[in-house]
């Protein structure tokens, strides 16, 4: 009986075991690439539905309901629509760069998936410099955005692209610095190592982890150009920003890159601060029972689907009743919950002004990330209650001081000498 936790790992190993020794390494590589290449577009498609549904509910609407039950086929129809749309390249555009840019945007977004630890031993490549790889690869996206904006020969595109580059450079710094604390505490750059170091306590439960999590997540949101940091594609100012001149499948690629990067940001926040695939030992039958109840109660699904869904969930719960909830469910669940927060931000906050955006990065997050390194040092060097108290108070005081210092100076009422 295979454990549910290692189900996919075992399946992959069994499949590879059928091959000859010479083929196995290559097949292993192909399998990993294949799984990521197949999963990434599927994840992206359903993230769009997820976002549309949640944002609609926040605006008292239904969201997509017409294509399929609960609008479940909407992403497919969108994809089909994108495929058959005309691909317009503006006159005077750099045709080659215009073509390359969206592809270059998607490639790093998919490359990031290689080091996401989806579960215990479920990571495509466990790089020992995984963390470095994450930052190195994710910053390639800005080249693509600038390339696309510039190649479009459109002032809106160029403006969006310039904003994007400025924003990305600014937010990269606090993003990296907030992770330095983790490297200090865990002593490893491997993502598996970082997740395993959180077995006892998720880093978000420590003072420096909490501050670092906020810093990292906010800079991540800014790096992937999502609201409220969506200056590069501010639709009320720049039409659509850097992808103004894109249509059809190229536009879909931009969209895909954005969603995959947003997903990756959520996944890395989970891996770095929210315990990755670790979770409290809740028995699996509880989750299976909940799933069975949900699929039985889903009134709009056809009856056979509901029946089979409920039966399959209940059967799985019975089969693996002795096990806790598997690691990959924990990881994906946390990631999607964090993606909900992203959508929640989008539903709540208006776009920041350019100077507020830069101010947040350079005047608040960057100093806080630096102080956070000191706080992490205090936390790990001192014995338990002292270190925690010291680092917490240090962070609170510095956050308060930063807010005070950043407060705009109250100018005196201006009097005009020549007015009277």
């Amino acid at each position: 009986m295979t454990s549910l936790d290692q189900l996919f790992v075992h399946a992959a190993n069994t499949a590879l075991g059928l091959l000859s020794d010479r083929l196995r390494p290559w097949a292993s590589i192909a399998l990993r690439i294949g799984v990521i290449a197949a999963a990434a577009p599927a994840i992206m498609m359903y993230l769009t539905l997820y976002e549309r549904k949640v944002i609609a509910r926040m605006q008292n609407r239904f969201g997509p309901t017409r294509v399929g039950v609960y609008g479940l086929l909407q992403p497919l129809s969108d994809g089909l629509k994108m495929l058959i749309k005309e691909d317009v390249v503006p006159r005077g555009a750099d045709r080659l760069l215009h073509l390359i840019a969206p592809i270059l945007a998607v490639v790093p977004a998919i490359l990031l998936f290689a080091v996401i630890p989806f579960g215990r031993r479920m990571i495509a490549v466990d790089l020992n410099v995984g963390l470095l790889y994450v930052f190195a690869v994710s910053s390639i996206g800005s080249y693509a955005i600038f390339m696309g904006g510039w190649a479009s020969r459109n002032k809106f595109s160029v403006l969006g692209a310039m904003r994007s580059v400025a924003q990305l450079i600014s937010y990269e710094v606090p993003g990296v610095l907030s992770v330095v604390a983790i490297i200090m505490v865990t002593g490893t750059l491997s993502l598996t190592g970082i997740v395993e170091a959180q077995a006892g306590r998720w880093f978000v439960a420590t003072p420096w982890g909490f501050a670092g999590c906020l810093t990292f997540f906010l800079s991540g949101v800014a790096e992937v150009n999502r609201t409220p940091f969506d200056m590069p594609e501010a639709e009320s100012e720049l039409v659509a920003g850097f992808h103004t001149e894109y249509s059809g499948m190229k536009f879909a690629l931009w969209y895909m890159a954005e969603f995959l990067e947003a997903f990756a940001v959520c996944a890395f926040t989970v891996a770095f601060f929210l315990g990755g695939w670790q979770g409290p030992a809740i028995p699996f039958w509880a989750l299976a029972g909940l799933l069975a109840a949900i699929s039985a109660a889903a009134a709009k699904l056809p009856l056979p689907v509901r029946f089979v869904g409920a039966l399959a969930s209940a059967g799985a719960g019975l089969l693996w009743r002795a096990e806790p909830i598997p690691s990959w469910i924990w990881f994906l669940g946390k990631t999607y919950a964090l993606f909900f927060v992203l959508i929640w931000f989008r539903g709540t906050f208006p776009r920041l002004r350019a100077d507020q955006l830069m101010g947040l990065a350079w005047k608040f997050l960057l100093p806080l990330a630096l102080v956070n390194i000191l706080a992490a040092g205090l936390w790990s060097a001192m014995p338990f209650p002292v270190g925690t108290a010291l680092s917490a108070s240090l962070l609170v005081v510095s956050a308060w001081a930063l807010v005070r210092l950043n407060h705009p100076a109250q100018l005196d009422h201006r009097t005009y000498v020549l007015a009277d």
Partner: protein
Amino acid sequence: MTILGVGVLKGLGVTLKTFLETYPWGRVLLRAVGIPSANGLVTIQYPDERQQHSERFRYFPFLVYDKTPDDLRCVSCKICEQECPPACIHIVGPAKDEQGRPLKAHGRTYPVKFDIDMAICMSCRICVDVCPFDAIEMDNQYEFASPDRFGRLVFDKQQLLKSAEYFKQIKPSEAAEVDARLAAKQAKTAPPAKPAVPPNPSSA
């Protein structure tokens, strides 16, 4: 001193409440923590469910006939045609025989053609107001979408004809008003009534 981030959290709270209010379980959750909540979904899923219109909702005019479709109240006086602001009404008539004498049905002249272009009509109800015979009234049907601009959106006399019963059904109070007016008129003209004139259904 305001605490850092409270406004941000309050804003997030507003959207989360709106989100939860759209789900039954969310409303249960909100009530459990003591937040009063009503169904947040305000969308009417149009083709599946329809909005309840008020009686005065109007969209497009129709011609009223009393008992049989040839007994229409319109006498082809063309006042509505002249008064129609976007000029969407086109009337040919009244019907005449070869000698040029007006033909009559049920004691009234009648139009040969009576077309209204749906694409031009702006639902202003001026035709109804100016009609001295209460022969034209506003309908509350609004689903006329068609792929054919000129064929299907120009309504001819046959398509426009609807019974007084139908009018009474969709707009009871307005129909009662019209009936009362017609009855009063009938009472005024009744004494010298010729036997050829059929009795008005409202007075009957």
